């Protein structure tokens, strides 16, 4: 209780000092920095336009090709074929063509520009909590990484939920991680380069409408270009119709493009109609997740039973809103977990922060770790009571923050809402943390412990053993006789060095 009161008093004091010491130079700078929108710090590989309103994949070249093909073909059709057809047959033809063209364009842009259903990455607290839960479930086994799957029974069918190491979440059923966009997408269908975006829960119906209407448009243009040729050849003869027309290309270009498109687009529409009617995604169909070949009892748990309901659910179901809030502003003051009275949870959160470290920093840390482990017998003589109690909030809170700032310097994947501890510097090296002499020894000892939390390969996040070891090494400070744990730690440092 006393600690809590003194803590808060210290914090109050500290905040007073910071406002008094802020020079007039600093405040204008603060005012000038505009608030960032969340799309600007989005961790996935997406491109954003119009201040976050439009979202696309990184490679958009093929999308522009699609757009050009559609515009050129329709442009030629409307310019050269429609006047003739309107005159000879009926003016309804260009009208229907126009409506189809606008529908195709609208659905294409809607598919390409909208959020397919990206799942935002877990916040550091969530990731740490999941790690803890997984570790508890596995009984805190040593180095062996725990199996990252969860089984859940949906409508009588056992479904495995996989853990995504990039997004640090257990993927919901039917979600998948798109390697091109580096995002987990809900109800992931496929990544379509022709629309320049992933196709997922939120834009599947637009995609389906696009390919369906494009099939109709392609068949429409193909049919009426042929009609134009036939009618012209009745009047002038077939070859002369082709030779004497003001421009040969209005016939040939739409014809060729549509001929090839018909097979592919109509085929694709048919395939997706089948997928919708059986309520499957392309991903599931390709993997054969619900195919009866896998087992007699294997069936699709998401299907509603009849084709009509499946179609209605896919096309006319409710449209969920975007979960990533692209245009929201980044909050600067998100409350983080308070530093506790002992150091264990600190290292838990440090670990989740440091899971964003690059290999370069792991190498630096591992090297430092080995050197310090070798030098530790010298240190132990110097260790004293007040220095060990540097796990108090001031220093305990300082170091992870500083470490996270230092380590995320070279990397751009900074988690949202990281606390900026008062004494942190923007230096890129952990070594510089030992600025103040009274804190030097304590920080040096903290360095000794922090590299344990740095995972060697990206996927091998194990919460239990580093914590356990930090616990034992802390105990080691109290009992200078425990050399075994130090020896193990230096060995681990060497292992990490070799793995990086």
């Amino acid at each position, binding site marked *: *209780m006393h*600690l*809590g009161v003194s803590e*808060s008093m210290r*914090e109050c004091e500290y905040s007073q000092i910071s406002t008094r010491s802020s020079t007039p130079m600093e405040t204008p700078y603060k005012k000038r920095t505009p608030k960032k929108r969340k799309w600007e710090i989005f961790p996935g590989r997406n491109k954003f336009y119009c201040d976050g309103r439009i979202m696309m994949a990184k490679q958009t070249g093929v999308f522009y090709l699609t757009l050009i093909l559609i515009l050129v073909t329709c442009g030629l059709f409307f310019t050269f074929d429609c006047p003739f057809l309107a005159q000879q047959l009926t003016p309804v033809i260009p009208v229907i063509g126009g409506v189809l063209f*606008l529908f195709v364009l*609208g*659905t294409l842009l*809607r598919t390409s520009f909208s959020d397919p259903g990206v*799942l*935002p990455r*877990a916040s550091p*607290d*969530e990731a740490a*909590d*999941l790690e*803890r839960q997984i*570790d*508890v479930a596995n009984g*805190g086994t040593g180095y062996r990484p725990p199996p990252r799957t969860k089984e*859940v*029974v*949906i*409508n009588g069918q056992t*479904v495995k*939920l996989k853990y995504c190491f990039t997004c640090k*979440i*257990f993927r*919901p*059923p*039917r979600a998948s991680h798109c390697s091109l966009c580096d995002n987990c997408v*809900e109800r992931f269908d496929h990544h379509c380069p022709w629309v320049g975006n992933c196709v997922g829960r939120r834009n599947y*119906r*637009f995609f389906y*409408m696009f390919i369906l209407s494009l099939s109709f448009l392609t068949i429409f243009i193909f049919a009426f270009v042929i009609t134009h040729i036939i009618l012209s050849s009745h009047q002038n003869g077939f070859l002369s119709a082709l030779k004497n027309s003001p421009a040969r290309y209005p016939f040939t270009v739409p014809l060729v493009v549509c001929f090839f498109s018909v097979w592919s687009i109509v085929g694709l529409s048919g395939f997706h109609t089948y997928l919708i009617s059986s309520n499957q995604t392309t991903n599931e169909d390709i993997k054969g997740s619900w195919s009866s070949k896998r087992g007699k009892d294997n069936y699709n*748990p*998401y299907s509603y039973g009849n084709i009509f309901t499946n179609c*209605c*659910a896919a*096309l*006319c*179901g*409710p*449209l*969920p*809103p975007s*979960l990533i*809030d692209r245009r929201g502003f980044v909050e600067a003051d998100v*409350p*983080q*977990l*308070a530093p*506790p*009275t*002992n150091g*264990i*949870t600190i290292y*838990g959160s440090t670990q989740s922060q440091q899971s964003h470290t690059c290999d370069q920093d792991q190498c630096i840390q591992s090297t430092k770790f080995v050197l310090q482990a070798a030098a530790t017998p010298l240190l132990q003589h110097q260790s004293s009571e007040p220095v060990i109690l540097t796990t108090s909030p001031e220093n305990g809170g300082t170091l992870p923050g500083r470490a996270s700032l230092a380590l995320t310097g070279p990397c751009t994947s900074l988690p949202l809402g990281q606390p900026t501890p008062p004494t942190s510097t923007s230096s890129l090296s952990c070594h510089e943390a030992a600025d103040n002499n009274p804190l030097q020894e304590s920080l040096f000892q903290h360095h000794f412990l922090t590299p344990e939390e740095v995972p060697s390969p990206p996927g091998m996040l194990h919460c239990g053993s580093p*914590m356990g070891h930090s*616990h034992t090494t802390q105990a080691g400070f109290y009992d200078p006789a425990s050399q075994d744990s130090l020896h193990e730690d230096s060995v681990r440092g060497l292992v990490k060095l070799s793995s990086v």
Partner: protein
Amino acid sequence: MATEFHNLQELRHSPSLVTKVFIQRDYSEGTVCRFQAKFPSELDNRIERTLLEETVKTLNSYYAEAEKIGGQSYLEGCLACATAYIIFLCMETRYEKVLRKISGFIQEQNEKIYAPRGLLLTDPIERGMRVLEISVFEDRGSGGSSPSSTMSSGSSAR
């Protein structure tokens, strides 16, 4: 029980955040948004079981209403398709309307039930609908007994 956190604003800006408890999604009924009704053990001495379960049950019913496939959603879907989805630029979807209702509900629950007990619910939409986050603040009245219990349970798990 401490009455210091009766003001929600004070709670939000209070620096004495102890821990965060996460209630995960329940996928046993498919991809529909549902949260697990399991009561987290960390909140044993902070809030009555029935209150939290009631909140979670109400939230689940709201989400079920938002994702219901019925007459209104079909009408909305067909109308949107007929207008080449341009109507979504002008109109708010039913899902969005329900989400606003949920925000209001969570705000009300925080003010009436959770803030007086030193807890704070975060709207799941702010966490990508993955978890229901409950922030546990230091209970100054009971002298910080919960932080140490969390720590000891954490260390004993090893």
